């Protein structure tokens, strides 16, 4: 089981927020999130959308094809700017 949180514009667009999910790698996690997004009532997201996110696992940025271990905390971010 891994925990996953989404932040940024993609979260507001899709309604995906925070979940505990079974997944062995990021692709499996994205597939699960894409399924869930179909039921949020907001804009569904695809695995491709999720693959474009910045991925942090346990506080460290990782490559998009990273394997997952039980208890990992995954954060998905979209690039941002401000001022």
């Amino acid at each position: 089981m891994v925990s996953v949180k989404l932040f940024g514009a993609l979260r507001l667009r899709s309604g995906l927020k925070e979940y505990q999910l079974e997944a062995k790698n990021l692709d499996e996690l994205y597939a699960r999130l894409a399924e869930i997004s179909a039921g949020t009532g907001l804009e569904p997201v695809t695995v491709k959308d999720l693959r474009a996110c910045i991925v942090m696992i346990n506080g460290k940025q990782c490559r998009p094809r990273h394997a997952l271990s039980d208890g990992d905390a995954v954060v998905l971010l979209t690039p941002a700017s401000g001022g």
Partner: protein
Amino acid sequence: MSSKYGGYMGKVVQVDLATGEVSPYPWSDRERELYIGGKIMAAKILSDHLTGKEKPFSDQNLLVIATGPLTGTGAPSSSRFNISTLSPQTGLLASSNCGGNFGYYLKKAGYDALILRGQAREHTWLEIRNDKFIFHNADGLWGKKASETQAALSQLLTQDGAPDKSGKLCIGPAGENRVLYASIISNERISGRTGMGAIMGWMNLKAVTVTGNHVVRPYDPEGMLKWNRKWFHYLRTHPLTGEQLPRIGTAGLVSQMQMRKILATENFKHGQNESFEKVNGERLAEEFNVVNKGCLTCPIRCARTVALDGQEVKGPELETLGLLGGGIRNDNMELLLRWNYELDELGMDSISAAGTLAWAMEANEKGVWNCGLNFGDVGGISRLWEDIAHRRGIGDELANGSKRLSEKYGGKEFAIQSKGLELSAYEPRHAVGMGLGYAVSNRGGCHLNGGYLVILEGLGLNIDSQTPKAKADLTVMFQNLMEMISASGQCLFTSYAFFPGFLMSRPNAWYTQAVNKVLPHAGAAVRLLNRFPQLVHMHLSPVFHHTRGFQYATGMPMTFGKYMSIGNRGYTLERSVNCRFGVSAKDDTLPKRLTDELERPDEPRSRVPLDKMKPVYYAARGWDSNGIPTRSTLRRLKLKGGG
């Protein structure tokens, strides 16, 4: 006076509030070519008046309110205006930029800029209607807060039943009482930084309203219209200006900054706040956001309206969320929204107010100043804002900002300011280029005037955030770019679209990773472009629409290289004026907390290596080793005599 160039109204007016004298200020097309408008124009006007001996609260100071040539032309995000003065907070030439519609209405009245000087004999509201300047007694407005003042002005302006078509500026009680970080308010938009409101307060000037029936005419209206369509489309489809900023605003950065360890927490002791989810942009949007708002002709619409006590009020930006959230160990969003509203209403810069409060809390914790304020103890803060604005009790001391307080009581090493201006919410020890920007910025500790390198160091792109390599050269480049965008009257947020959308929307792609790897090694190439911008004798239209847009608006020939060169001129001009007031390398500093203390004891690079970056920055700018622009640099930038 008139101009051969489009976009300009061709007139600058000066008003002496002490005598009531109104007179034209000479401003030629040659000066338009060299100094464009807005921030750079204001720097030139102030440069022509300031010798280095003047005091902010004096008849010799000027408050210059200047528009850019694109203001009112319909170009995207072009309703900005700039206010520059000798700042009471920094004692130096400083500027503050504001959205809203005042700039547009100033041009409707027929003026590119308004120069104010002198102290009115009574509380005054200056009403400008085309060429009529009416000085009203403002005793009835004095003491009122910002929205109450503007509502009263609106009522006074519409007594004949006509709709209110005016731009307004006003100060709140903080400006009246010369709080050193008092702001100027225009509708809901704030000219917040460097204490402009205190200058208006000293002038006894409560408000300025402006209206008129002139028309802003671009040089090539048809070309401009066609180009604007493309430009709007580009901004609307870019991942930052078309998705992130409209959807979640600057508030969306809180979570990103937390992950990048650059979210200022507990007076910058740390770069992460474990309670960030209680005070981040996602929570703001999901639980409090009512509607998004934008300035005139802006497709980005980054502003937020939130629900507070049954009222719809302006929501906080990232800086306020960060500094009045984790910055003082507050995780109560409702309180934060209230404070943001109260600070705007009282007319105080929320960044400096929060930075000063955080310093006081730490000073109390360390026994440096026993003021009774504690991190996380957030009851009574609303009362404290009132006390600061009215200079009552300890509020009178807090009204002077963290620099002066630390000089009086000690604790300079944790007074998080540069040149007297408190830093915004980006903790720079994991974004060292941003640290350099804070230190060398003409405005003082400002992220935007500092070049906003944090956009490369983990927000938009993800270059090595702790290497000093190339940071000085990139800082110069972005400062010059933003200087010119600001001078033209446009919002700096349009500059974020300079980064091609595919880099922003594909952070994991090989090409984005390659850019992240290569940029820190590109210092020499960036230096070459900074030094010889004429090498880019072209438009970079696929990603940078500003130069062609500028050309259609004004008729002034423009290339990317020339655009950057004018930005360089503006930045160096401000620096050279500040050098007259004694600024040199000794002032381009950060508090020891950021340069000497490691943010992570186990990460030796988690500090700002300012000593390594500053000499490179000076060399890149063509300044001497003491940070003074050299004669040859001034000559190259056509600033001979301006230094």
